[in-house]
């Protein structure tokens, strides 16, 4: 039987709810959950997932508000030996919970980075100043429910798309599509420029199509309908390129996971555009490693004498591909990349921004922050933007996407 068929047959598209049948109560998930370890307010993944799900009416909502303390990090699903899709069960239950109770305004606001990006970018300077001002932050906490110390990023002012409009990607035999995501566009446009440079250096013409948010923050905050609208729109923008046979790479490892499987598993978006986009979406490190396996990766990597602690974000591990960033680091001469192998930084997307969850988030990330600090290096590396901001916030050490190290090693800044 063709392996793709077998993939389709068994497990991969098994309904999330039906996967609860595999739970044998071993409680291994709970022993790895960093959030139930940090707070008694979260009863634990086994409890909230396969166990409570048997007590839920699939169309109604759940009486257990405590499930909202699940961060959605997905570690439970990764360590489960039986294949229960625990985090996905929780996410779906959360959607139903907020559908019944109504999504709080705070959740609605922080879940729309492209909207806040569009509104704030023209006023980036003053907005950044305000968000850095303790009095403003106190007010925002009291009224808006965003913790005053939460690691909010700074608006870049000039978006990545503005840069892209001015950028001509050289004609090349191979073409690739870049899904940059909201964070690159509004907060880290230089990351986007570096990613494009690395891809061009590897012989690709880079297309940056019209695109918007993937809807992940909306999904994780329970606004399922809005999330579906966004992800369908994104899939529609990218699908024509996928149909032409182009691969899609993303620098935001959580957004690419949304396209790869979460939109289907959690939001039930069963859409031909999404299906073809899913099949063509890659995390950028994943893609470069695959190139390397085919002997197609540009290997003119110059030495970078540095020790860099690396944190693989939970969502990156959720791709099930190991840690391709570490494999790329191994190709850079002189680079001592240290896989910290610590579970979670605590931010879990927008979870750690929330007033009532910030302390839990910082407690979860504590061990990671300590390790990064004691590594004594200039930068740490991490594939997810929200994790980078959290790591810097918790440890004081700047954090970069692994692509940036490749960029420097390829010496592309000249």
């Amino acid at each position: 039987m063709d392996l793709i068929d077998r993939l389709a047959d068994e497990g991969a598209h098994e309904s999330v709810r039906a996967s609860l049948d595999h739970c044998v109560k071993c409680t291994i998930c709970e022993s790895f959950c960093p959030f139930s370890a940090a707070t008694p307010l979260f009863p634990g993944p086994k409890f909230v997932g396969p166990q409570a799900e048997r007590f839920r009416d699939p169309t109604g909502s759940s009486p257990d508000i405590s499930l909202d303390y699940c961060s959605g990090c997905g570690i439970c699903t990764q360590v489960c030996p039986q294949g229960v899709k625990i985090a996905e069960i929780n996410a779906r239950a959360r959607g139903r919970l907020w559908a019944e109770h109504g999504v709080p305004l705070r959740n609605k606001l922080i879940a729309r980075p492209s909207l806040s990006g569009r509104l704030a970018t023209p006023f980036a300077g003053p907005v950044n100043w305000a968000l850095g001002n303790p009095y403003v932050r106190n007010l925002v906490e009291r009224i808006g429910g965003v913790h005053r110390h939460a690691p909010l990023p700074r608006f870049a002012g000039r978006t990545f798309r503005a840069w892209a409009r001015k950028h001509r990607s050289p004609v090349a035999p191979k073409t690739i599509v870049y899904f940059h995501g909201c964070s690159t566009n509004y907060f880290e446009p230089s990351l986007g420029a570096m990613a494009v440079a690395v891809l061009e250096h590897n012989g690709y013409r880079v297309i940056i199509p019209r695109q918007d948010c993937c809807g992940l923050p909306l999904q994780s905050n329970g606004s399922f309908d809005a999330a579906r609208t966004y992800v369908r729109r994104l899939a529609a923008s990218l699908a024509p390129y996928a149909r032409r046979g182009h691969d899609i790479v993303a620098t935001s490892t959580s957004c690419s996971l949304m396209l790869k499987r979460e939109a289907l598993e959690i939001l039930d978006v069963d859409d031909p555009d999404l299906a073809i986009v899913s099949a063509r979406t890659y995390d950028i490190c994943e893609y470069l490693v695959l190139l390397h396996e085919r002997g197609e990766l540009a290997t003119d990597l110059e030495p970078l004498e540095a020790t860099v602690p690396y944190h693989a974000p939970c969502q990156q591990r959720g791709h099930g591909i190991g840690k391709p960033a570490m494999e790329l680091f191994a190709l850079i001469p002189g680079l001592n990349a240290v896989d910290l192998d610590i579970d979670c930084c605590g931010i879990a997307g927008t979870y750690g921004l929330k007033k009532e969850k910030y302390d839990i988030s910082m407690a979860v990330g504590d061990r990671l922050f300590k390790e990064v600090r004691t590594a004594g290096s200039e930068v740490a590396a991490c594939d997810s933007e929200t994790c980078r901001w959290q790591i810097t916030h918790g440890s004081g050490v700047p954090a970069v996407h692994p692509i940036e190290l490749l960029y420097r090693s390829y010496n592309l800044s000249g």
Partner: protein
Amino acid sequence: MNRLEADVLVIGGGATGAGVARDAAMRGFSTILAERGDLAMGTTGRFHGLLHSGGRYVVRDPPSATECMQENLILRRIAADAIEDTGGMFVTTPWDDPAYAAKFHDGCKGAGVPVEELSAAEVLRREPRLNPRISGGFAVPDAAVDAWKTVWACARSAQEHGARILNYHRAVSLHVSDGAVTLAAVMDEATGETTEIEAGFVINATGVWAGRIAAMAGCGGVTVVPGNGIMIAMNHRLVDTVINRCKEPADGDILVPIRTVSVIGTTDSLVDDPDENAIGRDDVELMLAEGERLVPGFRSVRALRVWAGARPLFKDDKAGEADTRAMSRSFALIDHRERDGVERFLTITGGKFTTFRKMAEATLDKMCEQLATERPCRTADETLPGSESGHHYWIGARLAAREGDLTGDQLICECELITRHRLEDAMQRRATTNLDDIRRTLRLAMGPCQGGFCIYRATGILHDLARLDGPAANNSLRRFLEERWKGVQPILYGDQLRQARLDDWIFQGLLDVEHLPESAPA
């Protein structure tokens, strides 16, 4: 030798017996109920939990259907807490005669069963796991009823009206003098002690065992043929509505969402011994095949436990009919004064759970007639203990309760969300060392792990609470594992096999139950 006196002795603690005891006590009779095992351990505790709207009988037996619908409404009122208002559907699959649908619809109208026709799309919208090839259906007011809750509520109600409930007391003899039953002897299963009960009237409500008790009073030939049927509990609710196949009633055509599981049932084979509860491999295969027709992918769903119950099919030898058409599912109230010349003795058997209250009413009415006293039945008017609020059971109840106290109490049975306080309370109330008794009361170990994690905990707690010695507690644990295996072994495949092996790891590899001290032989 203990001696007790009562106006009425009821033998048999299933739904009928508990209903009779309640009715008798409410009519002011001093009442004793004797049950050889735990309440509802017989047929009552072994059915699928379907509270009939009557839809199943509208074509073949309209009066029975009408009766079901009437009692359905009464029970919803008086036993609200034990009933989940799931509603029911009769659906037409590709394997069902489409012509039956019209007969069904007409039958419902004729019998007074509320019915609403549904399109295929509507059926699948309500229950997306059903077979997409279903062509249409009907909505009827079926519901899911928790038999144990109902029976225990009746027993409590009876107690509130002065009755005594003696479970684990087996009837061993009935004494007939001057053509009347005057005395009964029951034996305490735990101690072996016999108690004599001087009763003004004896009611034999032992269901499928009725013949044995009737024979004790010299009333032979009361034949109740056990119609064995198996049921399988699937690990989660595949549907939230009771689903029936819209066809002539046959095997495997019901899927009932009851508490956290879905039950598929049932088969129909005549057996000799109602205590045998055999589970044939062919029957299991039949249930899975029929399940697959209703819910595609059924065979991959986790099967938790299988059990058999014996329907009481009354066949009166003295009626002189030889063929099986004499065996009825309607209930049979046997007037032994008329039939056998034995006074102060009635047998009530046959019937179905949905009509238990009515069966009890008919029995007490007959008894009152024979005693020449007029005492009206009020069992339909008074709500059962626990159902005072009128709120039906809802699936999220235990989850909501736990949410209210996440840090204050321990969860002993995690699968079924049973807290330590609840468990200890039940152990004390029931005063039992049999973990299966607790299982029946609370659903302990009835979830996916089937006791893998909670039974060791429950044993430890029991040891402390009941002041058992080690060997006695070990005994409880061992007996539980043996009993559990009976219900798991015939459906051991897939996820449940995985669970069973993990449980073996725990009980044998980790706890080494096999080498725990045993009780010294008596």
